[in-house]
């Protein structure tokens, strides 16, 4: 697959703090790529670097297979942190400036304003907008000229539930057209809903990357108990889907490679001559899973 963005060993320090260290990534055309990590994990630093706002201490990156330049940036629509516009200019005039920079006609302005629900307010000054409208104008500006790539940094941060739903629907709509999207978020559930691929960052380092369905797969665990925990431990390891087991006072916590029906599990032990005294399924929330991922590696 053709790579839109390739990052090799990117590092950036702020004094003693390593914001990003040795980060390598590949984003292919058409992916919705999530960069997931808690606050301070280096997401914004990474995005700012690949947009040439800040200089990396070491490492390189390529856009569309070429070294970065202003020409490559014109093919990217970006929303980084806060929406940055001239407060005294109208929404339409702010977007005209963006069109002039990207060297595209003004014809697309009405379309993006309509898409983001701001068309009625196109002649209002940016200063008069609510936070949600400002954020939507930033998304509108990123959509100008149908860019090949969109970069979104915490696109739903600070929005009300309705605003979040609106922006997410827009992202899905744009992704469906085949636009590559690179999105930073600290919300696991957002990444899971919107992204096809993900890289998990913690303290500036990449912990995992891959398809969302693989990296963020959530498996339930089972709490099992029997008269003899030793026998239980021995037998459970023979189960064809067995993954791992952790003793927790009086129970064994067991993971399987795929979901196992509790009834079948019960029968499995019974057929091996062991009667379970306790069986319960422990649902794991996404957040617990995410924390476990980060804890495990840190």
């Amino acid at each position, binding site marked *: 697959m053709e790579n839109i963005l390739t990052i090799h060993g990117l590092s950036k320090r702020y004094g003693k703090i390593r914001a990003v260290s040795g980060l390598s990534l590949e984003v292919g055309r058409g992916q919705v790529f999530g960069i997931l990590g808690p606050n301070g994990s280096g997401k914004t630093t990474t995005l700012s670097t690949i947009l040439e706002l800040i200089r990396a201490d070491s490492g390189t990156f390529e856009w569309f297979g070429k070294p970065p330049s202003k020409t490559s940036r014109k093919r*990217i629509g*970006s929303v980084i942190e806060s929406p940055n516009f001239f407060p005294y200019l109208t929404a339409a005039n702010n977007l005209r400036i963006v069109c002039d*920079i990207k060297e595209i006609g003004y014809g697309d302005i009405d379309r993006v304003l309509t898409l983001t629900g701001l068309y009625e307010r196109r002649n209002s000054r940016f200063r008069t907008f609510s936070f949600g409208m400002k954020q939507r104008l930033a998304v509108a500006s990123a959509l100008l000229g149908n860019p090949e790539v969109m970069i979104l940094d915490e696109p739903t941060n600070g929005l009300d539930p309705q605003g979040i739903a609106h922006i997410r629907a827009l992202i899905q709509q744009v992704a469906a057209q085949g636009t590559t999207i690179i999105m930073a978020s600290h919300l696991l559930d957002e990444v899971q809903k919107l992204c096809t691929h993900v890289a998990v960052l913690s303290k500036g380092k990449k912990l995992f990357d891959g398809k969302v369905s693989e990296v963020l797969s959530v498996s339930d665990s089972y709490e099992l108990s029997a008269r003899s925990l030793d026998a239980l431990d021995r037998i459970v390891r023979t189960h064809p889907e067995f993954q791992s087991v952790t003793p927790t006072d009086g129970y064994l916590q067991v993971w399987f490679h795929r979901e196992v029906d509790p009834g079948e599990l019960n029968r499995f032990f019974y057929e091996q001559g062991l009667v379970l005294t306790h069986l319960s399924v422990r649902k794991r929330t996404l957040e617990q899973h995410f924390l476990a991922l980060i804890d495990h590696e840190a």
Partner: protein
Amino acid sequence: MKRLLQIEFRKILTYRIFWILTGLYFLFLVLGLLMAEFMINNMVNDINRRLPIPIPHVAIYFFPWVWQNITFFATIRYVLIFPAIVIIILITNEFTYKTIRQNVINGLSKGEILVSKLMIIFLFSFVMTVLLAIGTLIIGIANTSEITAGLIFDKSIFILGFFMTMLTFQVFALFCGFLLRNTGLSIAIFTLYSLIIEPIVYYFLKSPLVFENNISKYLPVNTVISITEYPAIPVLKQVMGLHLQDSLTLSGCLIPAGYAILMLGIVYWVMVKRDL
């Protein structure tokens, strides 16, 4: 080029503070010019009371001297500071609103950002020069009894000095704005330096023994306002034989231009090195 200008025009066209400050500058300029002749004659009247032979009434706004006098009064520090503050605001706004970040993200290079601000400075200075030239022609025609074409344009080279002064002083302002990035701080430091610190340093550096060739005249703001160094008051020439400045000098123009080029170089270097 056209594209960069179009972007800058859009930022300025509906920006009220820009027009208010530019208007104020013009108001002060016109008032200052009207006051200048009046104040000089007030002084003359004052001196005349103690002199046996009275100095005649002083007129300064007739051809060809009107060119030199108007450009001299239009480029004193206290007037010049207004357009410089306008430029500082236009530049530091980009940092305050973080639009400089957004412009880079959208596909401008740092060099293009610097060039677009330089074009605005050039254009702003040019328009001011044209307006001042028109004003000078009107004032000159109104105050000169016998007008010939040669007389009108004899000292008109001084209007070029006004353009040079505007251009270089605003580059100084650009330098300050790009390095400090904060509007209030930039205006405060620039004003403090131009109006107070440099005159003090000038005073202490200037050796009372050496009239010419003292290093104080190479202080940056001083080189700029010295492009048009003295007014031409004909009566002083006649009475005291003072012959201070006949025309612009090459060194007088090149030294401030050198400062401006150096500052532009530093700004570009810092911009490339510094994170936005």
